[in-house]
């Protein structure tokens, strides 16, 4: 109790410096929490979308092999839809869903945040591949549609779309017929159109960029994917599991960057507190000499300095976590309001808060060690003579 009282008195005695230190360390921790929550959000949204999709295998152009995602595929190339007739003959393949994706350039110049991906699909796509995408308004794509659009919730919000609106792509006018419910996945940023209409607008009749496939026996999906990739070298077939693994590899890199970032935050925090504490004990040599003369143990002085350091860093940790949380909310608001990217929302969870607090504790303990050791070993008589 005396320890806490003494430490608190000393901190409030150098109030301005304590506050500056807390702000400095707090910012470092807030940034760490924010970055951690952003990668957490990315991870969760991935689990919400790609990992949840009703496809066992996806096919992309060979060029997109390293990143088998529909947006990447839209950039690098395409393959003819006749291929699907042959692929459906492969043993274990149950059904294929032809998809043509395109990225509209200068979609809405006055709304730079609106960056949709055009997704040309057949009507079966909704119940079979993305059964989790419910309708908020209007209807899904139906057989016989040519130039219609069903918009994901995010892009619909940013571009302010509602049924009856029309959008023009490559000179063709598409009518909005439906708006989807928010799913917290990447699907929220898509504009779905009938396959034929989109192919025609982009002058790629009969061309596909992305094909989800369902198989009969999921345990043999790996073999089936290999067989497809081997037999048709212009495409790359990958299992859902392989895609998840690839994403996990990617997240591994992000995680490593996070660890690096946390280490930098740790270092900044330690330097901040170390410099304040060295100054603080330097000013109190005589007082500490007096406390020792009165009979306070050396170990108690050590604990006192560590306590001051820990209190500073813990306050900074709590404030940093809260600010990081608020920053995350702000980022979530901005990207959903202006970019419609619901799937990139940062996620703050207990683990991230804990990381912030643990960093704070480690910072406080490490930064306190040296000043505590130096001052507690000071000779009493010399400390008393100190001016």
């Amino acid at each position, binding site marked *: 109790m*005396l320890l806490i009282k003494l430490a608190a*008195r*000393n901190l*409030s*005695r150098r109030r301005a410096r304590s506050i500056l230190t807390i702000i400095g360390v707090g910012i470092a921790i807030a940034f760490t929490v924010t970055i951690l929550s952003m990668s957490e959000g990315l991870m969760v949204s991935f689990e919400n979308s790609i990992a949840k999709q009703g496809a066992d295998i996806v096919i992309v152009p060979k060029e997109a092999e390293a990143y088998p995602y529909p947006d990447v595929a839209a950039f690098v190339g395409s393959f003819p839809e006749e291929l699907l007739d042959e692929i459906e003959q492969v043993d274990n393949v149950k059904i294929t869903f032809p998809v043509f994706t395109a990225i509209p350039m200068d979609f809405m110049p006055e709304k730079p945040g609106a960056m949709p991906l055009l997704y040309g699909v057949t009507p079966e796509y909704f119940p079979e591949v993305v059964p989790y995408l419910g309708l908020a308004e209007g209807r899904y794509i139906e057989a016989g549609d040519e130039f219609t659009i069903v918009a994901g919730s995010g892009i619909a919000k940013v571009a302010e779309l509602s049924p009856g609106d029309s959008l023009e792509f490559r000179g063709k006018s598409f009518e909005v017929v439906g708006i989807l419910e928010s799913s917290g996945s990447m699907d929220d940023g898509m504009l779905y159109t009938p396959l034929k209409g989109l192919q025609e607008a982009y002058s790629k009749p009969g061309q596909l960029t992305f094909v989800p496939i369902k198989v009969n026996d999921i345990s043999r999906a790996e073999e089936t994917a290999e067989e497809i990739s081997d037999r048709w070298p212009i495409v790359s077939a990958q299992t859902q599991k392989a895609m998840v693994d690839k994403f996990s590899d990617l997240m591994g890199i992000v995680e490593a960057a996070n660890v690096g970032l946390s280490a930098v935050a740790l270092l900044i925090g330690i330097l901040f507190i170390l410099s304040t504490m060295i100054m603080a004990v330097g000013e109190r040599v*005589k*007082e500490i000499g*007096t*406390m*020792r*003369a*009165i*009979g*306070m*143990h*050396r170990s*108690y002085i050590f604990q006192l300095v560590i306590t001051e350091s820990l209190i500073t860093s813990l306050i900074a940790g709590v404030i940093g976590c809260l600010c990081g949380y608020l920053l995350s909310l702000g980022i979530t608001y901005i990207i959903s309001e202006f970019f419609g990217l619901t799937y990139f929302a940062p996620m703050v969870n207990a683990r991230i808060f804990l990381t912030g607090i643990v960093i704070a504790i480690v910072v406080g303990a490490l930064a306190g060690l040296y000043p505590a050791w130096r001052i507690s070993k000071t*000779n*009493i*008589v010399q400390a*008393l003579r100190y001016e």
Partner: protein
Amino acid sequence: MNKIIIETENLSKVFTIGGQDIKALNGVDLKVAGGEFISIIGPSGSGKTTLLNLIGLLEQPSSGTVSFEGQDVSKLRESELDDLRLKQIGFIFQTFNLMATFTALENVTFPMEITHVPEKERLDRAKALLDRLGLAERMHHKPKELSAGESQRVAIARALANEPILLLADEPTGNLDSNTTKEISELLQRLNNEYGIAVILVTHDNQVARAASRTLRMVDGRLDSDSG
């Protein structure tokens, strides 16, 4: 005569500065009985503070021994020395050395907090002490709001908090004007009489030294006794 509480034998302290040995103390033999009031006078640099620091268990001699109540203190561990200072010895400094963030009252309760005296008793004792020393009105003031004489009286109250048997005062009036000097030396005399606490008072003021029953003169690290 009361029993001996402090005894030094052939006490020496050598400081080495830049390869040069300085004999701050050169074979001091001193016996202090319980309840005794000793003053030590002598020119600056003669070793008075060094002697007080050794008696106060703040540092170790180069040779010779200090015994506290018959116990050779060189045999004690550091934490045992801390405890002896805490409970048996009170220090009074020339520069008062009060804790700047504490009120007068908190400065006095502080040593009792270290010895875990219960809060109620701590406060009662501190208030009684401050009252005795004429500081009843000053209890809740911080050191910077106190005059020099008041500060030194708070420091004396702090030194008495854990009811020590020995009070060590190193030039306690060095920073005080003549009136306050008189007041503090009378106070020390009174405490010595009333509490029976032994006092060793270092001063270069002959007037102040007269408060003691025995005055010793320190020259070049040696003691000559004037009287007693």
